[in-house]
């Protein structure tokens, strides 16, 4: 009996954190122990694959027997022997551990272009990428297309930059092509600094070759011979996989001299960031590669004219590059038709927060927010109600329920006071405080402001101070107006996108959730019971069983009481950490 068995284990950052590497070696050990490979079955292989986007169910394992796939969720090492014995050896899947319908609806409602290889192929094996058509597009572009034809295809595809601003990629490349210079650079922006976003990480970890291939095609189109991938320091696995991919490309002569036997040379190296959000901004990123403080410069020249070391440079985002091979192979009009009239193709979003299915989601541009949150995300976690969705990270805003039916693209999100940004989406429910959320983002931008221009450096600081006092119950009349005024000035006067968009989280929450600010200021009350200085924890005497669980965990020794009698919290000692709230099995601790 010949069977072909493939075991695919998710080893993205989420998969590894949940024990993916250990599960993988447990399967490998199991195969070795039975000696199956040599005797019983023709082939039994294990594969590490990238993130398939549904990280809350990690470790996910696919078992394919003659192409028939079964997927297991939450796999732990101690589950491996049973899966191996019952499923792989005897052919009966362990039904109680397989994924349920929600896993399939999560994936079925998506349309995967950029993510089509993630979770399917081994990112550390170039042959796996070649087997699914990899480097065909680069070959075609280099051997049989002129730079003008490539630029034309990208223009026709209606692809817009996925790094946030949505600049038409074809136009950028056309500028890069037209400018004459003996040295030109191609840079891939893998800085992905927006908190709550991990699309680029998943692509770099799960399908690194698609990014490299996109860069090769860009180099051919613009006449560049040297490229850099800028990866943030917080993504060690992405760096490792990209480096491996580059090394393999050298062996295959996809990078280096005379690529595909043509007279075209292109080489690529990785530059690791050192932890600064502002380095995601194109001009700051280039200063960082030059070894300087990563501070943005005024846009007197376009990077296409004067970029890295003052040479013409084309810089695009990871996801932008990953789209390119598909456009070259499947055609510009195919890609264009996937999206809306204004923006072609699909977009990857990372949907997190208080939603049932958290993970990566790829949909055509133009679908509604409701579709993303409810049909794919499965709705709100627990029995809570939806309050807002935050898009675009610290540069974006919060969108309330009344706008859930807008069609998602760059313009529509801007219209409701947010932005598309890089694609991070965080769902907030009734237990999220909007003032605290705005403060969270402003803390971030204030800390990350590079300090070069005054409106951003000092303006964000002042806004943060005002938000700080509001959340501490010290807000004053006029604070809201002051925030709005400051926000307008910072937006208008800052040097780079960081400052220009920093007030957005505050302004958009003021637009839709002004009453929450007012409750904090006028009534000294946090309606969502989040702001630490405005809440107290108390124990409900009638519910408390006196089990002592809260007393045991309290780090401040603030809880008094003897066993089997209701306990009490000493408010003068309570540090409001909420540990007791989590520890109480009887829900006797109240937060208000």
């Amino acid at each position, binding site marked *: 009996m010949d069977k072909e068995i493939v075991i695919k284990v998710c080893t993205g*950052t*989420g998969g*590894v*954190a*949940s024990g993916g590497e250990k599960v993988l070696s447990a399967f490998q050990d199991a195969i070795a122990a039975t000696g199956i490979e040599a005797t019983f079955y023709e082939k039994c292989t294990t594969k590490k694959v990238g993130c398939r*986007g*549904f*990280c*809350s169910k*990690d470790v996910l394992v696919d078992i394919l027997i003659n192409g028939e796939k079964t997927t297991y969720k939450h796999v732990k090492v101690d589950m491996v022997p049973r899966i191996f014995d019952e499923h792989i050896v005897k052919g009966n899947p362990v039904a109680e551990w397989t994924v349920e319908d929600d896993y399939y609806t999560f994936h079925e409602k998506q349309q995967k272009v950029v993510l089509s290889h993630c979770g399917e192929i081994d990112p550390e094996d170039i042959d796996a990428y070649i087997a699914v058509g990899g480097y065909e597009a680069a070959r075609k572009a280099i051997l049989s297309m002129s730079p003008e034809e490539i630029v034309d295809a990208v223009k026709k595809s209606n692809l817009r930059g996925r790094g946030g601003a949505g600049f038409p990629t074809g136009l950028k490349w056309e500028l890069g092509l037209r400018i004459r210079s003996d040295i030109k650079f191609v840079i891939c922006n893998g800085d*992905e*600094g*927006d*908190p*709550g*976003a*991990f699309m680029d*990480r998943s692509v770099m970890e799960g399908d690194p070759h698609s990014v490299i291939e996109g860069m090769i095609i860009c180099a051919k189109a613009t006449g560049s011979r040297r490229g850099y991938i800028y990866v943030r*320091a*917080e*993504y060690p696995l992405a760096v490792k996989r990209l480096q491996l991919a580059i090394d393999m490309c050298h062996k295959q002569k996809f990078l280096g001299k005379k690529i595909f036997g043509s007279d075209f040379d292109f080489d690529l190296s990785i530059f*690791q*960031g*050192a*932890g*600064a*959000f502002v380095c995601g901004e194109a001009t700051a990123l280039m200063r*960082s590669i*030059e*070894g*300087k*403080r*990563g*501070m943005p410069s005024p846009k007197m020249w376009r990077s296409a004219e004067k970029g890295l070391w003052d040479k013409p440079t084309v810089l695009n985002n990871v996801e932008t590059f990953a789209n390119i091979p598909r456009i070259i192979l499947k055609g510009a009009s195919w890609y264009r038709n996937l999206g809306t009239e204004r923006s072609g193709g699909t977009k990857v979003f*990372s949907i*997190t*927060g*208080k939603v049932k299915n*958290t*993970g*990566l989601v790829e949909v055509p541009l133009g679908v509604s927010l409701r579709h993303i949150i409810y049909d794919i995300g499965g709705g709100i976690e627990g029995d809570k109600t939806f309050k807002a969705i935050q898009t675009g*990270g610290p540069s974006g805003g919060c969108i309330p329920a009344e706008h859930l039916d807008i069609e998602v693209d760059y313009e529509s999100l801007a219209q409701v006071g947010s932005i598309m940004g890089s694609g*991070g989406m*965080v769902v*907030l429910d009734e237990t*999220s405080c909007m003032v605290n*959320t705005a403060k*969270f*983002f402003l803390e*971030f931008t204030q800390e*990350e402001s*590079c300090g070069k221009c005054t409106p951003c450096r000092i303006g964000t600081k002042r806004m943060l101070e005002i938000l700080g006092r509001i959340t501490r119950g010290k807000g004053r009349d006029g604070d809201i107006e002051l925030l709005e005024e400051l926000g307008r000035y910072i937006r208008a006067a800052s040097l780079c996108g960081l400052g220009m968009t920093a007030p957005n989280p505050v302004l958009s929450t003021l637009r839709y959730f002004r009453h929450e600010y007012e409750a904090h200021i006028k009534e000294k009350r946090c309606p969502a019971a989040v702001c630490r200085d405005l809440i107290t924890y108390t124990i409900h005497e009638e519910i408390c069983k006196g089990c002592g669980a809260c007393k045991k*965990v309290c*780090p*401040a020794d603030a809880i008094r009481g003897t066993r089997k009698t209701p306990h009490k919290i000493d408010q003068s000692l309570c*540090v409001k*950490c*909420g*540990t007791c709230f*989590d520890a109480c099995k009887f829900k006797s601790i109240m937060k208000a």
Partner: protein
Amino acid sequence: MEETLQKILEEYRKNEGNIVTILQDIEKTFGYIPEEAVTWFSKKLDIPASRFFGVATFYSQFHLKPRGRNIITVCRGTACHVKGSERLINRLFIELDITDNEDTTSDQKFTVEKVNCIGACGIAPVAVVNHEVHGKMSLDKMMKEVRKLKKSE
């Protein structure tokens, strides 16, 4: 130290490095940026030490003070924030008795730091304990890890 620095210098010359890459190598080797290392490079390369410090203080991956033997990094990205990472951080500071402006315990056993986002948002809240990523972190799980580390010290 001299020898190690010499090696970093050779790497720099071979790979056409720059201040950022030198500092990255120093940080990787020593766990922080010792002042002597900067002075040494400043002399060798004839670049003012202020340029090195200018770059070192700009990026959050560089540290000018030695760090703890155990490093706990709590992610405070948006998803982690929404899922309560602030409480994890507060609790760690209380538990390890670290005061507000510090990040390392006085006995240098622990450093607690925040990171903006490590991109593991699907399993928020996330903490990295000595390079190992832990997902769906609870106060309980966190404290268990801390106790384990305290014991093994």
